[in-house]
Structures are given as C-alpha cells and as structure tokens.
C-alpha cells in the first residue's frame, strides 16, 4: 500500500489507481464487526434491501410480513459502536401496509422523498416518505415478483414490473398509465433490470429459462435473447434453443458500468454476458447453489480493480471475482437462508438480509495498529475515558513538535 501512496504522491500513478487499490483491499477484508449492527425491527424474513443512490445514507428493507423499514446508516455518534437505527416504519398497524410479503423495494433514484414497493398482494405502491402514505397504487393480476426504476433515466420515468403474467408491464410514474407492455416471454417474469448505461435498455429474466434484452423505444419485440451456447447448435439439445440457463432464471444484475450482465439460474450456474452483443463470456463460476423460487437479489462491487460479485448461497454469501470466476471467500454469519444483499459503494460495506430476520453489516476489517501506536494509546487511554475515533480528535497543535 505504501508503494501506491508514494506513486500517487510522485505523480507516477493516476489518483484513481490508489482509490481502486484501497477499495479492493477493503473488499477483500470484509467481515462481521461487533461494533456495527442494524436495528432488528422485522419479525419475519427480510426479502429485499435497497440503499439510496444520492447520499448512501438511508436504507430501505422489505420483509415477508409486508413491513417496510427505513434505516439511517450514517454514524454521527463519534463512537465506534453503532447500531443503524430505524428512522421510520410502515408496520402492520398502518392502514396502507401491504397485505402479503414485500418482494422488492426501491428508492426513487433522484431523492429520498419517494420509494416504490411491490408485493405478493398483487399491488405496487409508490410511497411518500414524509407521510408514509402511498401516493399511487398500481394493481396487477398476479403476484409481483420484481420491479425496477431506471437509475439514470431523465426522459422517462417508467417502472418495469415483472409478475406471474408473461408480459412485462411498464408503468409510467408521471401519468399513471400502464399501457406499455413488452411481450415475448412464455412464463412468469422473475426479475427485471434497467441498464445503468443506457436509459432505454431493459433486461428481463423469466421462468422459461430465457433472458431477453429490450429497447423500450422500439415497437417490435426484444433486441435479443441470451443464448448460453452462443449460437453453437451442437452443444444443446435441439429443443433447448436460445436459453440462458437450463432452469428458471431468477437473478439479474448489471455491473456498475453497464457493460456486463450477470444472470443466475436454478441450474446452479451463474453466467456473465456482454450486454451489448449478448455473448456468453464463458466465465466458469462453478456451482452457485440456487434454490430460490422467487427473485434472487445479488450485487456487484463498485470501484474495485477486479470487481467482485456477492451472491447469496444458502445461509452464506459467496464472493467471486467477476472476470476470472474464482471463489474468493464465503461470508458466513446468518443463521438461515440469505435472501438479499446490497453493496454500499462509498464505504465498501455489504448489507445482507435473510430469513433469520437479521440484516448483517459486513465491514472492512480495521487495520491492526502499529507497535508505536499501541504504546501511545496505552498512555492516552489513562487520559481519555471514552475511546474517541482519532479522526474526530483535534490534531492541531500550536507548537512544532
């Protein structure tokens, strides 16, 4: 690390390199920290988490009992030990709470004044955060598995919704209309995702083993369907044409730059695709255990040099290197199945939620103190009664020593 610092100082390396190196080092040292906790509000499993994109301060979580909770992740208490407090809750006592489990929650990408939640009670609600009342309710004919708002769209405010119906519905936030429908799949839609690179590209995954990429501006069908054999007809059996997986496809995730798309399926495989051409990059991750009947929420790191994928595998989270496919480590800590995970890009922290009603925060392990620092802190401990983070301490001194 000192090598990177001196190079940055001397101007030999780009400043971004040092930032990437430090982010990678932090992600490689993720583990559970006894000082970091998240308030336990949910009485049932947690199905989905979302961290807002603007400040990275507030986190939404949706539970299997229909409860939605908002947490404050920032630590302003000047103490090392911090529990992320729940700021407000849409609990069972609220008039507008979802009747059945909440499957997806997402903040409005531009500010935290609004968020959207969809649930197995066949509705999708657009909530006002201030009053915690739904400003708009969209009703559907089948269970809503997943919805997504484009994180970069300026020209449209469409919400893509995947339900048990094979048609993907696009609901417009501005007008409330839902006439735009994308047809092409043959079974229920388990996951939908907008591209973070282009605001008109949408990827959808379905239980018919297909993943289709759409341009919503076009009137005709999908742009292309992902094929795991890249068109090599000799490898698959002839009925299995153009399938992304050999089972239901239940997880979709774009990388942060939008150039690659990751998909997971119930055939216990994860595949990496080039999102522009739809080509399977054939990176072999091995067996990625997947038994989920609903959407699987997994995430990719941001700002690291080899990017990492965090996939929930049973009761632990598997961390893979994105382009080589090697398993870096397994994060164990949950008592039951992990359902969702979300990466906080500014602090390189991972939040995971599962059936054991806990949200765990995986924090990069702090550096071990040097020998000289240890003796100094032993002297200081006698002086200070509370252990204050040295970053908050006043380090200015009047004389030069």
């Amino acid at each position, binding site marked *: 690390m000192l090598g990177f610092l001196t190079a940055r100082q001397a101007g030999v390396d780009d400043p971004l390199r040092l930032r990437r*190196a430090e982010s990678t080092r932090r992600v490689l040292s993720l583990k559970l920290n006894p000082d970091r906790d998240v308030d336990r509000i949910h009485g049932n499993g947690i199905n989905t988490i979302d961290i807002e994109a603007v400040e990275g301060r507030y986190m939404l979580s949706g539970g299997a009992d229909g409860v939605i909770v908002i947490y404050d992740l920032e630590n302003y208490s000047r103490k090392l030990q911090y529990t992320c407090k729940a700021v407000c809750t849409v609990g069972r006592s609220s008039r507008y709470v979802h009747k059945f489990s909440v499957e997806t929650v997402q903040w409005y990408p531009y500010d935290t004044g609004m968020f959207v939640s969809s649930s197995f009670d066949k509705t999708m609600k657009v909530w006002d955060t201030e009053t915690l009342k739904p400003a708009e309710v969209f009703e559907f004919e089948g269970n809503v598995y997943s919805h997504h708002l484009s994180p970069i769209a300026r020209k449209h405010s469409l919400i893509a919704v995947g339900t048990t119906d094979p048609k993907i519905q696009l609901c417009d936030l501005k007008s409330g209309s839902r006439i735009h429908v994308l047809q092409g799949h043959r079974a229920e839609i388990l996951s939908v995702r907008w591209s973070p690179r282009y605001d008109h590209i949408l990827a959808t995954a379905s239980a018919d083993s297909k993943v289709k990429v759409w341009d919503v501006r076009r009137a005709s069908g999908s742009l292309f369907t992902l094929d795991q054999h890249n068109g090599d007809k000799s490898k698959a059996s*002839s009925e299995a044409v153009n399938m992304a997986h050999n089972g239901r496809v239940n997880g979709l995730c774009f990388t942060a730059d939008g150039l690659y798309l990751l998909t997971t399926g119930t055939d216990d495989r994860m595949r990496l695709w080039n999102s522009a051409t739809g080509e399977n990059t054939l990176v*072999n991750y091995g067996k990625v*255990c997947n038994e989920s009947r609903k959407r699987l929420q997994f995430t990719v790191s941001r700002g690291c*040099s080899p990017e990492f994928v965090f996939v929930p595998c049973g009761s632990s989270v598997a961390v893979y*290197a994105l382009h*080589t496919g*090697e398993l870096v480590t397994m994060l164990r800590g949950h008592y039951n199945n992990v359902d969702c995970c979300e990466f906080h890009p500014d602090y390189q922290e991972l939040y995971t939620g599962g059936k054991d009603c806990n949200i765990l925060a995986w924090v990069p*392990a702090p550096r071990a103190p040097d020998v000289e620092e240890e003796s100094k802190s032993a002297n200081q401990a006698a002086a200070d009664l509370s252990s204050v983070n040295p970053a908050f301490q006043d380090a200015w001194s009047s004389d030069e020593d």
Partner: protein
Amino acid sequence: MNRKRALISDAFKVKRFRNETQKFGAVSKGDGPTDIRSTLETLMTLFPRKLFNDSLPQIVMKHQLYSIHNDKTLVDKELNKLREQGELLMFQLGFDADAFGLVFSSDYKAKVLAGEDGRATRATVEKFLEKLPSPCTELSFSKDKMLKEFRFTDSEITQLVKSGVLTVRDAGSWWLSIPNSGKFTKYFIQGRKAVLNMVKKSKYSEVLKTELEERRTTSHVKFQMKYHIHDIVGAELVESIPTTSGTLLRCVDS
C-alpha cells in the same frame, strides 16, 4: 522496479494471505504455469484400460480437471485451445448435461479403426473419420450437415450409428460418440454412486481424502479410487475443505 503496468489485483495476492486465516492442509497444487496437457495425461493413466480389454480409448471427464486446477475459466480456455488445435476431442456422454468426456484424437481414431477391423462397416467408418474436420469443435451433427457437407447417404448414416460412432440425439441429429462406451458410462455411474455412499455413510458424512483413497473398494467400484475422487470433487458433489490433516471431503446435503 517496473511497477507501472502491474495489476492492482496482483498487489493483493500476498496481502490476501496475510489478512485471511492461514491456508493449511498442504494441498498447494502449485501456482506455476498451468499445464493442462500434462494434467490430462496424468489423469488418463488412471483410466483402467484392461477392464475394457483395450477396446476403449482413455477417457477423462472435463470436470475432473477442475479438482486439480483452481481456475475453472482458465481450464476451459486451455481445453478449447487444445480442441482447436485438433489434439483433443470432446464428447457429450449423455448422462449429465454438463459431463463432457475428453479423448485425445489420435487415441480415438486408432481405437475406433482397431475396433472396426474385419467388420462390414469399416469402410464407412474410415470415410467418416477422414471427413471429420481436423479441429473438430462440434459435439453433434444434424441431418442436413451429414447429407450435404459430408455427402453420406441414409444407409451410410445407419451404418455409422450401428458401429457406435454416432448416437441418436433426436430426430435428425446425432451426437459424436465413442463406440462401446456404454459399459464405461454404466461402470462410471455405478462407481460414482458407490463412492458417494461411502462418504455419506462415514461419521458426520465426511472423510479425509487420503483415507478414502486407501479404503477397500467394493465390487461396484470398477475404476481406481483416485479417478472417482477427482470426479466427485470436480463436479462439486462433495465439498473439499482444507484442514490440518489434509483435505477433507464432506457430503453436500441439499
């Protein structure tokens, strides 16, 4: 010191060891340049030739290589290179969508021709082997390919299926296959089940790899123990855990 083009990930290869718990178990497979070809040859020596009276070429499963080398993507890439050079042939053996058998092409051609000695179908099989594109990257052939590109008649295709070089995949397409490999598949699946049961019946459903290698094999296990162990580890049917007394194989309960 030329650090200018070094990857950031390389800088953390050493750091990772210091931050993580010590990797023990003395199972370092060597981080040197991965020589897939020599691994293939070592695995091929484990194949029992006497069992089939030398009529089958030596077959290695693709996932057995995953148990030796850590990087699966690299193994896949190297295998594709060997196939493109025309040295290796890959077969879809049929019992598992992911199980591919690998045979050296020279071996394959020699054994097939030796098996066809004195048979009526010899001429057609020879013709087929010659027509087979030298770097053969395909696992199956469709009917129009056979008729147009290779110019085989229907009766010739029937002869090829009879001799075992082609196996029916569905109406109008065929897998490339190894003649007389039915016995191999049968013994392979039998042996795999038997070895997995041995691991499952052990106390706590786990057994040290070295101990398993030394166990007496029942009559169901016709191949060498090591061959089966590479297979179950590579196919991830058991978890391979490094411990202070060596690698531990634990059953994956689903």
